[in-house]
């Protein structure tokens, strides 16, 4: 083991002995998400660097402390990109943070989300041992998929040391079209196009306007405009603004909720809303009492996240049914029996 990995391992063993919590930090750009973890800060930023990248393999492997911006610019040099388009909340954002949060950008509904592109993870477990799951190949079904289990686990199951990701060639052209439509018509429109062969790669609706992004070869993009009409929206940065929550919608002084649902589902009846992923991801701000909002979701059987609470929340920031909660708890207790890795970040129960 290298010196730095030895250091990681010793810290974990020590925390285990002393029953102390550890708080893994990459770029610390998602601190707003969930409860603050109290514990010794454990920075991964100095465990960084691309380990392996061959554009012909469509696979990149990098250490968890590698800045995501560094990975993106390396891929860009070879005309490739991260299709799940992770949000970059700060220039310090790291690969480890991207994997452990599992957040995907506007194109996640078309190319796939983070988990769809994770091929392998090297992790350090609760005993300070290095374990490898998945690999640096496109297909691998040997053993349980522990690698994907780490995606979105917020560091609560172990320390992610290294990740192998599938990447894709960048489409040669793209276009954003915009249409004046209300929420209902926009969702209907998105899903109609999503069911057609047109190369749609992102959508969002806000304030009676919908935006659709198409990516593909030069000729196919030309034909999209011809077929659909609409107004060409020349500022392609709008997708980065949505992804990184810099769009004016996200600049509000109340609690931000996220709903994950079937795309062609009914309106939530919220006026202050932004909708992505053809309707499958819906954001809204609300000043309602937290419990009232949770009751609404419970009655409607909707999965939601208290994404950016205005005040410290009273309950878990995500909802889960009882049996799922029990399975989740058991997974946590199995991989982190001494509970040193980020207790209660998302769920109060574990």
């Amino acid at each position, binding site marked *: 083991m290298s010196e730095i990995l030895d250091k990681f391992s010793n810290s974990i063993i020590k925390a285990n002995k002393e029953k102390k919590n550890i708080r893994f930090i990459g770029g610390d750009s998602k601190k707003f998400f969930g409860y603050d973890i109290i514990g010794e800060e454990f920075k991964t930023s100095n465990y960084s660097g691309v380990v392996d990248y061959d554009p012909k393999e469509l696979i990149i492997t990098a250490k968890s402390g590698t800045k995501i911006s560094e990975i993106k610019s390396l891929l860009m040099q070879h005309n490739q990109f991260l299709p799940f388009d992770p949000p970059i909340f700060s220039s310090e954002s790291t690969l480890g943070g991207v994997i452990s949060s599992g957040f995907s950008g506007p194109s996640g509904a078309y190319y796939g989300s983070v988990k769809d592109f994770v091929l392998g993870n090297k992790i350090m*477990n609760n005993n300070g041992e290095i374990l490898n799951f998945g*690999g640096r190949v496109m*297909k691998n079904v040997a053993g349980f998929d522990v690698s994907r289990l780490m995606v979105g686990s917020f560091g609560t199951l172990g320390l992610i040391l290294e990740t192998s990701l599938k990447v894709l*060639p960048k489409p040669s052209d793209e276009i954003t079209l915009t249409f004046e439509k209300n929420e209902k018509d926009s969702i209907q429109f998105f899903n109609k196009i999503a069911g057609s062969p047109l190369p749609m790669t992102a959508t969002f609706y806000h304030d009676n306007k919908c935006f659709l992004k198409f990516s593909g070869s030069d000729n196919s993009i030309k034909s999209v405009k011809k077929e659909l009409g609409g107004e060409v929206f020349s500022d392609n940065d709008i997708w980065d603004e949505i992804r990184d929550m810099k769009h004016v919608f996200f600049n509000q002084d109340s609690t931000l909720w996220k709903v994950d649902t079937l795309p062609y589902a009914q309106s939530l009846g919220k006026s202050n809303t932004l909708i992505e992923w053809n309707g*499958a991801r819906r954001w809204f701000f609300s000043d309602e009492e937290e419990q009232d909002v949770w009751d609404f979701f419970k009655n409607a059987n909707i999965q939601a996240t208290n994404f950016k609470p205005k005040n410290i929340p009273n309950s878990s920031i995500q909802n889960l049914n009882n*049996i799922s909660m029990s399975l989740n708890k058991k997974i946590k207790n199995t991989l982190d029996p001494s509970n040193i890795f980020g207790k209660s970040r998302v769920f109060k129960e574990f």
Partner: protein
Amino acid sequence: MQITKDIIKEFQNFLNDESVLITNEEKKPFECDGLTAYPQMPGLVLLPENEEETVKIIKICEKHKIPIVFRGAGTGLSGGAIPHKSGVLLVMSKLNKIVEIDSNNRIAKVQPGVRNISISESASKFGLYYAPDPSSQIACSIGGNIAENSGGVHCLKYGLTVNNILSLRIILTSGEIVTLGNNSFDSNGYDLLSFFIGSEGMLGVVTEITVKLLPKPEKTQVVLAAFNSLKDAGEAVGNVIGSGIVPAGLEMMDKKITVAVEDFVKAGYPVEAEAILLCESDGTSEEVKDEINQISSVMKESGAYEIRISKNDEERNKFWLGRKSAFPAVGRILPDYFCMDGTIPKKSLSYVLEEIEKLSKKYSLQCANVFHAGDGNLHPLIMFDASDDAQLKSAEKFGADILKLCISVGGTITGEHGVGIEKINEMCHQFSKSELNTFHLLKKVFDPSAILNPDKAIPTLNRCAEFGHMHVHKNQDKFPNIPRF
């Protein structure tokens, strides 16, 4: 525990007579799956007709600690559904309804016994289809696809089963029913949906599956490129992808395969070629036109001496017919073959193919290569005659050496067929003791009594020790008290 007459009665209390198979004559068709070399008569075969009956069966098995092996269509190639001699073989084929096709949301809700291809057939009227297409798609069930995380020829572009499933309704050994996933792209809590897919019947049984449906591409065309050397063909694979194209399918066949296939189905392949590549493009008409031009020129630059482009669907199907007939064509040369499933980085293709050729000479067994070149997923077919014990043993050793070779270049022992019993020893090469322990501990979360598919997929540490390839760190066992299965 053995299955006693009293226990059989417990099952008969709620199952039809035809759903409980007791005699050897009745059970005989179920003694193996697609891996035919290791048949095993099951203790009892049960065929529930719905979720309610399945829950009852699982509760009885849990109460008496009776092993359960789940089976779909029985087409698996790694022996994952080979029965347990004193256990229940739970055959899910009667749960075979397409519950709903929701064209607005582009999803289908189906029961596990539904055949893979029938999902696409039913979705076709909406212009939609289910993308993963393992070669056995006309027979294999979607439940089996979940268990194995099946692939197919289109995975490079469209992903494996795990990338095309939105939620699963499963029964735990407690009899509780839980839904994994949320029918959206993000799901709260740990990603148990992905964790469950590919778990080879070790964690629970699926009773309903929600799959993603994709719009059918407007156009599909395929390029057939012939090469004078395997090396050039191997490099062409990387060059196509390096040029910025993700083909819908990119398959390679060596000369042994093309000759066998030509003899069998007359696909019109250039049999003098050392290797041929089939490269498919799909999408809008404009996209396909651009891609086919680019693929053809990259193939030429990479040394292809002949390029054919399918002019219509009939010709495209003819090109694919040969690829799809490769396995049965090889089966005509010798009575038996092992189909290996190692996956490697594409840059190691030429090296690995040369090494396989050397092993073929060493073991005096023929080996033909047909594979998903775009994914680096090899399917060497080792030909032998199982009635000759010496040949069977040599073929097993040959296969094991190929898998070790795959691991040595940074690959894996299985890309899409699963471990089952076939590759269980090789798991000891690929994973360390702590990694295997992690698998065992996680299985316990779902199956504390260890009744689900015992002795498959994840080797016990004892088995690895006996096999002689356990990767032991500092000679210490950190989890001496966990049960081994």
